[in-house]
């Protein structure tokens, strides 16, 4: 029998607020344990939560960008369970009335062209249990509450994906958008973006869904794909051998490349959700949604289409230039100042990206202001320097922070545009390469390129190539 996998994802994304969702503590990652804590996020007696408005705006931003309907009224609820990293014995989340409903994402590449979203809700992150790394770790667990209370959105998809690769493609594109929107830093290693996958299989043609397993802890694109593929194979094999899939939570172990049962449906928590009495319902007006929308960066897909339409860039170039808000902004500023879109695009996609990669830098670190790069492009356009010299100038600008004009003038890199000066260089070259001249005249015209190279070399790369070509051709052909 042929089986069809059915996959839905639940993605937790930390919002990039400076302070936690219900108190004023810092959200900065990497501080000494239990230094970003207060009575509220430690669940001390009598402490009360107060909602961070910025977190709500970030959540609205993500919801709007993903086409969700932001609900005029949403309600925080308590999710009750005991665990040492959960200070209050409940997590403040949203349950029956989430912040946003619906929405979806068109996925470029992958095998699922569109993934629908069920909902986006807001909640607080838990602390972190440290089971290892202490001398008494065999007997004790330590808890760091710095992460407790960091704002999260949980994005729940429809069961629209059909393969591990499709799920990974969606997750990757969702990450790019969240990072593009500046609501999440996209850092899966530090846990600021996390993914759980709901996986089931059913015979092809069957409408009803199969029994699903929830796979936790798949925190990279590669693991999303591998864990889902493993789980699909496991379930199909189980069914083909006459077994049944049980509803359970399974944990992905990247070391062994397998999923392992964590708890069954019977062992599942009864979270006893009820509306959080310490927080009034969250009311979001249309005006607030509009205000958030107004501050939102143009989405990557829209920007890509605009680059093609208004700059006449090829699809590929537009795609590369809209990898990040920073890169796209940089390109547009260079193009506007230089007045030469194609050159701006070539420079940004070529030398700029290559140098950034070589140095391990990002566009935010680039030491060349867009104006400076535009100045360099202007020198090439005016014929002051050749494009090969320009690359050298670019490298010097990158390292020194000096302007192109300054480098060209001080280092004497301007092209030799004077015909008589070039003519004497050409004649010297022809004189010292009599054999090559003879070969050329004998019909071996490929030698011409060699002679151009020799002239360039003799001019220390400063000769204007167009002029050199003309003079050389005239000297060789005219004397024949």
């Amino acid at each position, binding site marked *: 029998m042929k089986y069809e996998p059915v996959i839905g994802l639940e993605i937790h994304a930390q919002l990039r607020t400076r302070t936690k969702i219900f108190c004023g503590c810092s959200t900065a990652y990497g501080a000494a344990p239990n230094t970003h804590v207060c009575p509220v996020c430690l669940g001390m007696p*009598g402490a*009360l939560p107060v909602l961070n408005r910025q977190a709500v705006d970030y959540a609205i931003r993500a919801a709007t960008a993903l086409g969700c309907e932001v609900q005029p009224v949403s309600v925080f609820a308590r999710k*009750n369970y005991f665990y040492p990293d959960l200070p209050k014995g409940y997590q403040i989340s949203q349950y029956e009335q989430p912040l946003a409903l619906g929405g979806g994402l068109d996925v470029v590449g992958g095998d699922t062209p569109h993934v629908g979203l069920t909902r986006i809700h807001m909640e607080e992150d838990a602390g972190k249990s440290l089971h290892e790394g202490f001398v008494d770790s065999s007997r004790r667990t330590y808890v760091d509450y710095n992460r407790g209370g960091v704002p999260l959105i949980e994005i729940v998809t429809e069961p629209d994906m059909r393969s591990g690769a499709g799920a990974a493609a969606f997750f990757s594109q969702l990450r790019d958008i969240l990072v593009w929107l500046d609501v999440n830093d996209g850092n899966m290693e530090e846990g600021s973006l996390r993914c759980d996958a709901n996986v089931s299989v059913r015979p092809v043609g069957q409408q009803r869904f199969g029994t699903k397993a929830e796979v936790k802890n798949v925190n990279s694109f590669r693991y999303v794909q591998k864990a889902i593929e493993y789980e699909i194979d496991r379930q199909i094999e189980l069914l083909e051998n006459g077994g049944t899939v049980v509803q359970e939570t399974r944990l992905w172990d990247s070391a062994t490349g397998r999923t392992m049962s964590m708890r069954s449906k019977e062992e599942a928590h009864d979270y006893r959700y009820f509306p959080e009495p310490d*927080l009034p319902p969250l009311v979001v007006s249309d005006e607030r949604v509009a205000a958030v929308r107004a501050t939102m960066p143009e989405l990557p897909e829209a920007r890509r289409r605009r680059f093609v339409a208004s700059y006449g860039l090829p699809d590929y170039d537009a795609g590369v230039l809209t990898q990040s808000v920073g890169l796209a902004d940089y390109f547009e500023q260079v193009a506007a100042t230089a007045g030469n879109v194609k050159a701006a695009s070539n420079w940004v996609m070529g030398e700029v990206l290559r140098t950034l990669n070589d140095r391990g830098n990002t566009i935010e670190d680039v030491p060349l202001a867009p104006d400076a790069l535009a100045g360099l492009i202007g020198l090439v356009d005016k014929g002051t320097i050749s494009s090969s010299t320009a690359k050298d100038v670019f490298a010097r600008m990158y390292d020194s922070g000096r302007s192109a004009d300054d480098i060209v003038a001080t280092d004497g890199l301007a092209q030799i545009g004077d015909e008589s000066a070039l003519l004497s260089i050409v004649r010297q070259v022809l004189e010292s390469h009599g054999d090559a001249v003879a070969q050329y005249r004998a019909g071996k015209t490929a030698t011409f390129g060699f002679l151009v190279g020799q002239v360039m070399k003799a001019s220390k790369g400063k000769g204007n190539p167009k002029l050199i070509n003309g003079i050389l051709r005239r000297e060789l052909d005219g004397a024949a």
Partner: protein
Amino acid sequence: MLDSSARTIRDDIAAGNVSAVDVCRTFLERIDAVNPSLNAFNLVAADRALARAAEIDRQRAHGVSAGPLMGVPVAVKDNLCVRGMRTTASSRILERFVPPYDATAVERIEAAGAVIVGKTSCDEFAMGSSNENSAYGPVCNPWALDRAPGGSSGGSAAAVAARCAPLALGSDTGGSIRQPAAFCGVVGLKPTYGRVSRYGLLAFASSLDQIGPICGTVSDAALALGVLAGPDPADATSSPRPVPDFTAALTGDITGLRIGVPRAFVAEGVDDRVRSAFDEALDTLRRAGARLVDIELPHAKYAIPVYYLVATAEASSNLARYDGVRYGHRTADDGRLELQDMYRRTRDEGFGAEVKRRIMLGTYVLSAGYYDAFYLKAQQVRTLLRQDYDAVFEKTDVVAMPTTPTPPFRLGEKTDDPLQMYLADVFTVSANLVGLPAISVPCGFATETDGAAPQRLPVGLQLTGRLFDEATLLNAADAYERLTDWHVQRPG
């Protein structure tokens, strides 16, 4: 001085007739004298109080303007956090807990010049109506030491009745300020939900809890409410409404005031002596110019079950934080105890029987499969009750009821029968479910002659007002107080 109101003490200190230190010392001596027989205090903070009082005297000497509670000794219920002062909620689980922060209510009274003399006993986590559910022993009623002072703010009410302080803070979730105030013959005010910040109040039921004053006179209640009330950025449920001048509202004039009386609701199960005190109080109000209006509260009879569903549900969640992980009691642990066993033992050792009963009830109420039938249904009835009161307040200004169906009962009399105990709140829980402000004022005595010596047992009149209309409520209570002398009578 012990019989003086908070207002008089404040004025005397401000005028230089007496020093804050002398006032403080006088009340501390009184506490020393009577607390051994009452057990009203979990902690007496004598040194801190005297230092505070000395500071206030110094400020006065330097001409620093006086706060509205300048030098007034205040007893604080032990479920309110005072920075650096042990705060136990009368529970073993917080036996040694010292909060590093103040409750907003505490911060405000101290900023107004109050001198905190100590922490008063209560039912554990404010769960109870007799103050017998304290890990540190029951409190005795100053009027009859073998009787309950009421609860859960029993220590605060007993302390004020016994003149250990002119003013105390309590908290009221289902009657926990008003019922002990009635039992101890003092005034107790539960403000509108949201009027006073709950920050730093150890939560029992978050949608019902409200902090308020217990004191000797309605005028002192108005004074204290003025200090406590107002929005607090640390409590998202505190109301942004402006706070009126409650003292200015006390005109003594209630001509034309419409007082609703739910005759059918108060007909059943009310002690005859309570009923006659209540009828007499209504008569007094009528003679003062108020109009009595018969009203119906058709859903009030469901208030007790609704209350015990909502309150226990919220409590089961609110008390989950007492898990032995970060603070408070943790069971003896050699490092080999499994996590679940650590939780189980810690909470078994730390919580008393009534708290455990309510956690179990509340957990059940919220459980999958029961939520709709219990929690959701209770919230629906709560809405109906709110509609009852909306209708009533269209034709009345305040509602009058006895505060409690009986005079104070004997210690131990109801401890074996939680349902009987829960019925002690029958007239008080509605105000919490709807969020309304309500006050209990002394309205007479029931004479008990079945013991060796006859006992005079206080009876309370409860008035309930519109949301955020404490001004009208306090004016009605004050007008009644001016016409009677129940509130000036004190136990021996």
